[in-house]
């Protein structure tokens, strides 16, 4: 872990105040930001751990807890809401048998809520890892989940 983080901080060395970029990169490499990882980041960047922790917990896209392999983010903003996002949520909860903020037993999926993904015209929408899917229906949801 230490080597990976070292590499990341080196690569971003020329940037001024790169903390958030570093945290993004570390999360991409290691899956989530463990306390151990945050300690190393703090040391490498010479920033107090309290601040690193404060930043890591402030932002929704930075995870300080271990997540499943794939993170499903369901949009809960108004345009998706009126197109039935609540039904999709129930559907997802049923299919995966988990609640928002939880991870499936096989560690495959985590379920989270997010605000607007910017594709409201094809609402309701979800984002799995970096990819977005729209016009969701129960059937479509099945075929999307099957891909992971």
């Amino acid at each position, binding site marked *: 872990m230490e080597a990976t983080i070292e590499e990341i901080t080196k690569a971003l060395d020329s940037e001024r105040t790169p903390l958030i970029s570093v945290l*993004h990169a570390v999360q991409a490499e290691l899956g989530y930001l463990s306390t151990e990882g945050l300690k190393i980041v703090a040391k490498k960047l010479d920033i107090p751990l309290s601040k690193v922790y404060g930043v890591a917990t402030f*932002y929704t896209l930075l995870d300080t807890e271990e997540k499943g392999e794939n993170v499903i983010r369901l949009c809960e*903003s108004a345009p998706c809401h*009126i197109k039935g996002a609540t039904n999709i949520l129930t559907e997802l909860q049923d299919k995966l048998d988990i609640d928002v903020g939880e991870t499936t037993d096989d560690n495959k999926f985590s379920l989270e809520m997010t*605000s607007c993904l910017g594709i409201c015209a094809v609402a309701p929408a979800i984002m799995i890892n970096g990819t977005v899917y729209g016009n*969701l229906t129960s059937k479509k949801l099945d075929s999307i989940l099957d891909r992971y």
Partner: protein
Amino acid sequence: MRNCGHIDPENIKDYITRDGYQALGTVVTELKPIEVIEIIEQSGLRGRGGAGFPTGLKWKFTHQAAGKEKYVVANADEGEPGTSKDRLIMEGDPHSLLEAMAIAGYAIGANTGYIYIRGEYQLAIKRLKIAIAQAKEMGLLGENLFDSGFNFEIKIREGAGAYVCGEETALLKSIEGERGEPQVKPPYPTNEGLWGQPTLINNVETLANIAVIIREGAEWFNEIGTEGCPGTKVFTLSGDVENEGIIELPMGTPLRRIIEGFGGGMVDDKEFKVAQSGGSSGGCMPKELLDTPMDYDSLAEIGMTLGSGALLVMDETHCIVDIAKCLMQFFKHESCGKCVPCREGNKRLYNRLDKISKGEGELEDLERLRDLADTMSKTALCGLGQMAPTSIYTTLKYFKDEYLTHIEDNNCTTGSCRGLVDLEVQDKRGGKDYGNNN
């Protein structure tokens, strides 16, 4: 937006054939910085990020401010729910943003630009990176542009999922690697911005107008739109209209024309009920206001906002209380927690609405909602808390009856508030289909 759909965003040549980088070339080889600022001032361009501040003036302040170094920052955080215009510009025409940032840099005296983009926009980030690499390779970004001695480089900073980071001071904090909490203004970023240096922050759509204005002239721009708000505005239309999507129209186009003309009317010819203009922090416009011209000034007069240009249109099947609750849920989650009125206020507004939606509301709840909304708009630190109750204000004003039915009759006529509805009714309303049969 004129290039979107006509060019391949991953190929700089496409942009060049449509007069790309001409404006930058003209500016750095033929105009003095102050002359560039004058053109923008004369054009009357106003910020498209929400507040509608005159762009030329902002450039002038930053130009005049003293500092070791200056920065240009493009606000691409686009957190306002129901808005995707900036995404469309960055995914479809990324070079127009880069060119404008370089022009702005020349005008205010900056050599570095940052694009602060939300982490959710992975495709836009990828396309911007490609665009920057291509522009650099061709010498259209980097050192000594057009042999003029002017250098400009652009960096991308990814946000990490916080709505409040769209607010300019919070955004700068985030680039500085801190928690994205808004700061007390003044000082304004034009004087003390990124790392304490003068910084120009503009919205992506604002910047996308720059190159065209330089090429076609301020006069040309003035002729579009209204007198107080020249130019065009990109609207993101969503909800119960036939054609949802994104459209660029002259400022001042009446709401009805947008819904009926581009939107193609309501889905299934249902009755129009309400349109929320400006995203979550915007007001809810009832039928009576359908003929309002959509520009900053006309909307401000009636206590509404144009905001980001989001338009969420809803028909009679939606419940006002349910919508208001959904909006407050958003603010409750997105409040950064720095100031008390916003942190506590949003929570309480939500709780009260939740109570009403479950049929446990009392008449005094409505008054409390109002009082709390008043306090928040007066005392919150930043725009988030000040604007959060807008939807409460406007719905209480235009849809009070509906609140009253929830409270007095324990009834939600549309069947959206689940606490108040028999299961039977819910199934009729679409059940598994989600009313979205695709």
